[in-house]
């Protein structure tokens, strides 16, 4: 699991989706202090041309669902973060703006993006440390 010192200005975590249709990269921005609202970025890299084509029609923020939490503590995120912007780069990768993320404890977290249209989701895991 990626260890993630909060004071780092940027960190990246990645995970292949459960069915392998895409790879999720989550990119933090700025210092990650606890108890602050954060805006992060997610990059979804399609595994093949077919998935790339499907992504092209998934332009509504509601096509992507963020979830997360601390599995060891048995609780979710303290906020309801949302995808607020969907963009595509030249290679057909999807770039999502994730707003309203907050972490209220140090420790082991997961953050996932669910793409219902693909019936697939990817989950990144990281340890948030002071």
């Amino acid at each position, binding site marked *: 699991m990626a260890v993630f010192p909060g004071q780092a200005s940027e960190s990246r975590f990645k995970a292949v989706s459960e069915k392998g249709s895409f790879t999720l990269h989550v990119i933090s921005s700025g210092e990650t202090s*606890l*108890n602050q*609202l954060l805006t992060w970025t997610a990059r979804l890299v399609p595994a093949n041309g077919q998935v790339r084509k499907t992504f092209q029609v998934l332009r509504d923020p509601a096509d992507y669902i963020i979830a997360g939490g601390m599995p060891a*503590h*048995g*609780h*979710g*995120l*303290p*906020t*309801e*973060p*949302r995808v607020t912007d969907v963009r595509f780069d030249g290679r057909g990768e999807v770039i999502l703006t994730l*707003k*309203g993320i*907050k972490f*209220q*404890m*140090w*420790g082991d977290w997961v953050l996932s993006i669910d793409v219902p249209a693909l019936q697939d989701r990817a989950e990144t895991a990281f340890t948030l*440390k*002071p």
Partner: protein
Amino acid sequence: MGRIFVLLLILGLFALLGLFDRVKPLPWSDQEKAQIRTLVLPDRMELQKRIVRTGNAYWNDSQALELGKALFFDRRLSINGEVSCATCHQPDKAFTDGKILAEGVGIARRHTPTLIGSALIPWFFWDGRADSLWAQALGPLEDPAEHGTDRFAVARIIAEHYPAEYEAIYGPLPGSLKRDGKAEPNQINRIFANVGKSLAAFQSTLLPEPSRFDRFAKELLDTGESDLLTRTEQQGLKLFLDDKKGQCLRCHNGPLFTNSDFVVTGIRDSNIPVGLGRLAGIRKVLDSPFNCLGLFSDTPNQCDELIFTKKQGPELTYAFKVPTLRQISKTAPYMHNGSFETLNDVLHFYNLAKPQYDQAEIGEKAHLDIEPLGLASGELARIEAFLRTLEAD
């Protein structure tokens, strides 16, 4: 002779142990030091920068502060002329009252929390039913058990006793109010909101002061060791930080020793059988005309806390706000229902993590955010010794 010798030996040993408690430095890992750094109180300038200004353009206005201070201590703002904010939030008790449940015009439903550092957190009341310090202040004024007054009466008191002070900050009062005590509901709401903003400006000056813990932490981080806390207190701090042993840092983190989140610790609400906690609080704040998005907010475009806060799910039922632990030795009794007389009681509760209500009573399996610690009573006493170092010098 022999007996005296043994006695002296024992006495000598105790003296040595006492000395030991002072001098032998405890080792601190890099991880612990990094944790401690996040708990140190920033200086006053930095704290002022961190004040949450939600919806209040007057939070730092010196005239609003003066008006707010006068209103805070003014007992005319109550139905019987006997209750002011300071009745329950007493300056010499870290702005609490020492009572189990607050007493104003009647007996309130919950225990009075401290106001020191309130300006630094985004949610107010134990269930977070206000999203700003100014909107919070409107609650007790109209609560029948607290001030028992209403916004019309408050507006009339402003027009009668504080017209110049008010108008210098917020502009002219409605003429009809000054003439014959009448005004449109939204004019009244505006005055009511401004009373809240003044009270918030005053409360924004109630910032925490450094404690012995802060001086210890600074010395430890600067020089690698410090004896400004006794060995017992340092051991308590270690347990507090440890995610397996005390687990306290999970929720009581940051310089105020709170993450301002809402969690379920199993404390029973005085509202029988049990109140809904944050789940009820969030519904109230979303419905309030005085929330960040409302007509009386000065920052309706900066309401991300309200917009992104968690609004549903089992984790919110019976969840209450994590309180600050600064000044904790001055604010007994404890918890939102005031059910624990001493810190020792609080720690024994955490050690067992057994909710004050049972499943049969609430008719469902409730979420719980704490787990039994299984610490020895000596360890609990050390945590308590540490908590007592958080009192401002």
